């Protein structure tokens, strides 16, 4: 098996198992839509009741989902992104069998483990241990099988003696821990998670992600809804963007998340003061990335040349000191450097404006999404005045781990 969880991997896990494409298809949605009844008045309620009983369609409603097509095969991982209220949770609930779609066809094969929001299916008055049994019964496990798994569930949840206390005394993080531990212990064919990684603490998140990576490596199938583009990118190979109940985009998780983030930037950008006006402090007027041939781009193949271009403003008309830093989209620092180090002097384009460029020959970054941060500093290189961020994506296939490729060679060892 290959490390399919590493972003951009082209190899598909589970291919070895053979079989026809159809047999491996665990989830198939065709034109799925969901109308929720509007029941603000008593008349609405009566009309809805009549419509449901006589299978008519004329009830007052609003459309939560419309015309969703989706397939998920064994071993695939799909991320669902979208704004609050876009219909992501409804979609997951339809697949989990909790909500019946109003239109379209849903086919789900195999056992589905669903973690829909906080404390899926837990009873607040029950202790953690009792809830383990209840949840497993709901997921279709016998008491005997559950008993054999309880210890590993308790160990994974790692909530100590709280396991014998009622759930209502748990913190939200503890509930999620237990929920995740239960859902994963039941070895579902498809795991559905809705924003669960957002709640646990740092170390539990890492544990969950490690588990999910192993799950995917072993051919597990994941359907994940998250507002963390980082998680979607690292865990999912494909993604779907739900916008106002419709699929706005579906494809590689990197492409979808990039579009989605761009959409948000544009939405927020309207509020940002557009032209970077002159002032009394050095600032970055503009910055962008381009290919080696000078064509602007924000997507680069691994190993390609990347050129950062920018214009800085210096009120005293002295060449400014510049600093760039590369961070992963989750904020992990990768590398940074100072223009002072090499005694670099930007080109004076016109009074107070200086052009600069940084060329990265053969980009060593592994596939993923990154941010280039450009800063202006004072002449002494001590005070940071301004920051501008440019996002870019590195594409490609890799089985490597980490952030950058370090030049290396495999050699026969000396043995001592």
């Amino acid at each position, binding site marked *: 098996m290959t490390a399919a969880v590493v972003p951009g991997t082209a190899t598909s896990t589970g291919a070895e198992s053979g079989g026809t494409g159809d047999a491996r298809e665990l989830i198939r949605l065709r034109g799925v839509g969901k109308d929720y009844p509007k029941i603000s008045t008593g008349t609405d309620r009566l009309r809805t009741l009549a419509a449901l009983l006589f299978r008519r369609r004329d009830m007052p409603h609003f459309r939560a989902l419309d015309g969703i097509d989706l397939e998920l095969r064994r071993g695939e991982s799909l991320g669902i992104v979208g704004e609050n209220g876009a219909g992501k949770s409804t979609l997951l609930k339809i697949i989990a069998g909790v*909500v019946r779609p109003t239109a379209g066809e849903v086919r789900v094969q195999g056992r589905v483990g669903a973690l829909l929001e906080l404390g899926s299916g837990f009873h607040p008055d029950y202790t953690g241990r009792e809830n383990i049994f209840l949840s497993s019964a709901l997921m279709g496990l016998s008491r005997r099988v559950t008993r054999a798994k309880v210890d590993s569930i308790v160990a994974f949840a790692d909530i100590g003696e709280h396991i014998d206390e009622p759930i209502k005394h748990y913190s939200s993080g503890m509930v999620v821990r237990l929920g995740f531990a239960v859902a994963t212990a039941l070895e579902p064919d498809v795991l559905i998670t809705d924003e669960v990684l957002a709640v646990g603490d740092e170390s539990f998140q890492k544990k969950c992600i490690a588990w999910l990576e192993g799950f995917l490596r072993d051919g597990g199938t994941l359907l994940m809804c998250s507002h963390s583009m980082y998680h979607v990118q690292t865990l999912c190979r494909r993604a779907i963007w739900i916008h106002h109940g419709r699929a706005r985009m579906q494809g590689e998780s990197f492409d979808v998340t990039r579009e989605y983030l761009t959409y948000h930037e544009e939405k927020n950008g309207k509020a940002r003061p557009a032209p970077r006006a002159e002032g009394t402090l050095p600032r970055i007027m503009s910055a962008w990335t381009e290919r080696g041939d000078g064509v602007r781009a924000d997507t680069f193949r691994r190993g390609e040349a990347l050129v950062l271009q920018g214009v800085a403003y210096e009120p005293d008309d002295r060449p400014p000191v510049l600093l760039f830093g590369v961070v992963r989209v989750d904020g992990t620092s990768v590398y940074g450097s100072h223009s002072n180090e090499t005694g670099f002097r930007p080109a004076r384009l016109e009074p107070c404006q200086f052009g600069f460029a940084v060329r990265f020959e053969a980009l060593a970054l592994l596939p993923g999404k990154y941010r280039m941060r450009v800063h202006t500093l004072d002449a002494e290189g001590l005070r940071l005045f301004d920051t501008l961020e440019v996002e870019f994506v590195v594409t490609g296939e890799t089985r490597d781990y980490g952030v950058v490729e370090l030049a290396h060679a495999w050699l026969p060892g000396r043995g001592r």
Partner: protein
Amino acid sequence: MSAPGVSTPAAPRWGWLLLSFTRRELLNRYAGSVSGLAWTLLHPLAQLAIYAFVFSKVFRIGVPPSYPNVGYVTFMAAALWPWIMFSEGVQRAMGAIGANAGLIRKVAFPHRLLVYSAILASCVVHGVGFLAVLLALRIAGEPIGLRGLPIAFVLLVPYMLLAAGIGAFLAALQTLLRDVEHVLQVVLTILFYASPILYPASLVPASLRPWVQLNPLAWYSERMREVLLHGSGFVAGDLGIGIACAAVFVAGLWFFERLSPHFEDFL
């Protein structure tokens, strides 16, 4: 049961889930109280004491001569427990969907199990109470035929099917129309006094008697007394009423299943 095309997991596991729900119903009923399950026995006993005092001492309703040597308490108890079983089962079943909204919103399972477990829990609690009270009265010297006990409990089966059918109907309706629970309170009170539970059917004016006989609760109240205090066996009417109860159950469940996929929309 589930959306067309959505695969439903194998059926056998639902049996264990039903047991789990029923257990939860029983244990949670008095969760947080010190005496726990004891309350479920004490509550009907208190009702029995109050009614016995008011109706036999204040209103001076006597046991009809067809039941010689039977005390008023015994006469009433024979019909009161099945009634409590019925009315509490219906009430709990009606509220079962709302009470488990969190589960319904997040997990796929047959919702009718919640109705069944409400009825089952009521049967277990008050079945045990009924048995205990009957045995206690017998020890106290009341003429309760032990031979009639199994017959009485067999008769309770269609009676509880009736409760399940009505409960399922109301549970589905209540999910959409929250008025149901308020109406039910009133209807149950009317039914309680309209059925010969606290008084013998013979006290009902002759002109109204055919109406009372249409009421299956009246039928079972009378039958319980006949079986337990007269040593009566099964009669043909038991089968007829039993079939009618089963029909109500099927109809109620049909209604419930029709609406159950949409519960999540309303919770």
